[in-house]
C-alpha cells in the first residue's frame, strides 16, 4: 500500500499518495482541471499555488506541478491574478529611465519589504530586479528576471501594488531589441537572402535526384 497523506484542497480534506505533486493530487482526488493547469512542467506559471502546513504559520508558495504534497498541507490555487499590463509600441519606446516612470510608476513605491522575493517559486531575486528597473538598468533587470514564469504570486504579495512580471517583461524586450549588441552576421544573411543570392543554388540543390541528395547527406562534413 502506498504511503498516504492528508491534504486540504481549497479546504476540503482528501487522502492521497505522498509522492504526488499538488497537481496530481488534485486529479487523484477527482478534479478534471481546466484552470490552474498548463504545461505541467514548470514553464508556464498556470498553476501557482499557496499553502500552509498545519501548525506552521509560514505561508508557502509553489507551482502545483512542481511541488510535492505533504501531510496536513492546506493548499489553494491562484490560477489567475490580476496584474497591470500597460500597452506600448515596442518600435516607439526606448530604454530610457523615463519609460518605466511612464508605464509602471508604481515601482517607485517599493517599500523594500522583500515579500516578492520570498514568494517566488522560481527563487528569483524579484526585489533586486525591480531595483534595477527603478534605476533604468534594464539589462541587469532582464538577466535577473530571465527565468520568470509570470505566475503573478509576487504581485499578489506586494503592498506597493507592483506588477513585477510585466515590468520584467518590458525590461527584457527593451534589452533584446535595443541594448543587446546587434548580430551583423544575421543581418548580412537576411540581406543576402532578400537579394536573391541563394535562389539559384537552392534551385540547383532541389533539382538533384534523390540518390545524389542521399549521398550528400550521408557524406556531409560535420562541424566540430
Amino acid at each position: 500500500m502506498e504511503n498516504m497523506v492528508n491534504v486540504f484542497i481549497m479546504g476540503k480534506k482528501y487522502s492521497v499518495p505522498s509522492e504526488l505533486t499538488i497537481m496530481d493530487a488534485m486529479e487523484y482526488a477527482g478534479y478534471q482541471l481546466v484552470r490552474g493547469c498548463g504545461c505541467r512542467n514548470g514553464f508556464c506559471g498556470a498553476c501557482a499555488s499557496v499553502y500552509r502546513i498545519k501548525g506552521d504559520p509560514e505561508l508557502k508558495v509553489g507551482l502545483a506541478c512542481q511541488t510535492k504534497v505533504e501531510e496536513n498541507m492546506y493548499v489553494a490555487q491562484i490560477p489567475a491574478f490580476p496584474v497591470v499590463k500597460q500597452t506600448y509600441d515596442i518600435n516607439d519606446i526606448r530604454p530610457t529611465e523615463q519609460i518605466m516612470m511612464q508605464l509602471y510608476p508604481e515601482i517607485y513605491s517599493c517599500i523594500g519589504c522583500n515579500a516578492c522575493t520570498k514568494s517566488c517559486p522560481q527563487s528569483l531575486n524579484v526585489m533586486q530586479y525591480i531595483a534595477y528597473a527603478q534605476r533604468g538598468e534594464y539589462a541587469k533587470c532582464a538577466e535577473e528576471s530571465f527565468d520568470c514564469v509570470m505566475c503573478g504570486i509576487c504581485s499578489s504579495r506586494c503592498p506597493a501594488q507592483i506588477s513585477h512580471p510585466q515590468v520584467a517583461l518590458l525590461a527584457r524586450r527593451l534589452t533584446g531589441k535595443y541594448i543587446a549588441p546587434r548580430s551583423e552576421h544575421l543581418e548580412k544573411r537576411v540581406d543576402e537572402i532578400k537579394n536573391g543570392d541563394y535562389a539559384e543554388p537552392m534551385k540547383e540543390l532541389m533539382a538533384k535526384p534523390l540518390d545524389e541528395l542521399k549521398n550528400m547527406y550521408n557524406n556531409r562534413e560535420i562541424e566540430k
Partner: protein
Amino acid sequence: MSDALYTNEMLESIKKVEASRPSRIGFEPRRMTADEKEALLAKFHPDYRKENFETLAMGPNKGERVPEELASLLQAHSRIKAKDVDLKNPDYDVDVLVIGGGGAGSSAAIMAHENGADVMIVTKLRHGDANTMMAEGGIQAADKENDSPMIHYVDALGGGHFKNVPELLYKLVTEGPGAVKWLNDLGVMFDKEADGTMITTHGGGTSRKRMHAAKDYSGAEIMRVLRDEVINRGIPVVDFTAAIELILDENGKAAGAVLKNMETGELLVARAKTVVIATGGAGRLHYQGFPTSNHYGATADGLVLAYRVGAPLLYAYTLQYHPTGVAFPAQIFGALVTEKVRSLGAMLINSEGEAFMHPLETRDVSAASIIRECNERGKGIQTQNGYGIWLDTPMIEAIHGAGTIEKRIPAMLRMFLKYGYDMREKPILVYPTLHYQNGGIKIGADGMSDVENLFVAGEAVGGIHGENRLMGNSLLDIIVFGRNAGINAAAKAKTIDKTGKLTLDHIKRFDEELKAAGIKTDKVSPQLLPRYTHGNPKYEAK
C-alpha cells in the same frame, strides 16, 4: 526541497559512470552508418510497431494507417448537432479567426493584424499554454558564415528520411534567418557574444552549429514576447474557449467555427472569412502508452476538426519520441530534458558505464537506440516507471568549467533540484517521451489546406519535417509558417466581399460516412483535454 532517493542499483551504476567519465572526455563515439540506422529504427522505433496502428476506414485518408488513439478520434462523432447552434446570429464576426494561442497562432495573428485584417484568437486554455512555452533547446537558422540555407536543407531532409515536402522545407530554411531577426527585433533575448555574434550549438543531426537559444527557456522567451505583442496590438483573445467544429459556407469553404466555453459549456459561433488552425500537437493522447513532454491541451484537436471537413492529413503515422524524457524521479516522469544537455557534451551511458552511442544522432535514432539498450541488451537502469539510461550531466562542467550548467541550462538544473537531485554532481536518468507530431494537416506553400480558406500553421501541419523533425526546426517552423499563414489568411480575407451562408451540413455527411464504413462508436471529438486519476482505484476501476 526533497531528498534524493536513489535505489542501491542506481548508486552502484553511478559508480561505473563516474569511473568511465575521465576516459570519455574529449572522446567522440562513432556515428552509425545509414544501414545501421535503418535496421535499428525498423526494430525499435515505436512508429514501426504495426500493432499499435489502425487503418482509417473513411475520410480523406481512407486506407492509411495512423496511431489507434488518433484513429478513434478522427472516426468519431461531432460534439454537437447542427441544430444546437444558431448560425444566423454569430457571436463573433471577423476577417481571420485563429484557433490556438501558442507560438504559431500568435505569429499568425500578429502578421494578419500587421496586414490590416480584423483578427481574433480563440484558445481553449490560457493564451500561451502551448508546446512553444516548453521548447527548451533552441531555434535553427542558417545565419553563420560557414552555413547556408542549402546545408540546412540537406540536414533537415536527411533527418526527415527524405520525405519532407520540398516547397515547405525550402520556405523553412530560406526564411529561417528572417524569422530569427523578426524575433530579435521584437525583443527576444537570444544568447549572444559581446560582439553580437549569436551563440549557436549543434542539435542532433545538424552538420553546422545553428541552434540559437535563450538559455534553456528558448520557447518560453519567444512565447512571452509574442503574447505581449498580441496584447500590445489589441488583438482580441478569447481564452478558455475551444473550437469544437468548423463551419463551412454553402460552397464548402471554411467560414468560421463553433466555440465552446471550457468552464460554462456555453456554445458560441464565430464567423470568419478565413480560418487558421494552430492547435498544436497530440502528446496528451499518449500513443502506445508513452509519457509526454507536451502541455496539457495537446490532443490533436486541429487534425480532428480539419479531417471532418475533408482536409487530408500527411504523414499522420509518424511521431517523434524525444530520446531524453525524465525517467526518474516519478514526479517529473516524461518531462523534457532538452537536447541542449547533449549539445553541451553530456553523453548517454548504460548501466555498465559505457557510452553506447554518439549523443547527437537524430532524435528517432537516439530514441530507438535507448529503447534497444534497455529492452534487448538489458543495460537499462530500473526505475519506478520502467527503465532509464544515464545522461552524464557532470561531463558538461568537466568540459566547459564549473557554473556552465547554471548559466546555460538553468531550467533543467532547477527542475531536478526541486526534488533533491543535483545534475552537476550526479548523472540523470532518461527514457524516450512522446514529444512531437511529425505529421499533420497537408498544406501548400501558402499555408492553406485542401479546404479553401482553411489555413494551418505550427505542429498541426504535416510535411515540413518529413518523418522526423530535427531539434530547433519546430520553433523555427511555428514562426515561419505562423507568419506565412497570417499574411496569406489576411490577404485571402481581403478578396472575400461577403462570406456565404454558414452551414454545419458536413456533420451529418460525416456521420453517414461513418455508418457506411461500418464504424460503430459513441466517441465524440475533439477530445480537448486528457483525464488523469493517477491510479486512484475509485476511478481507475471504471
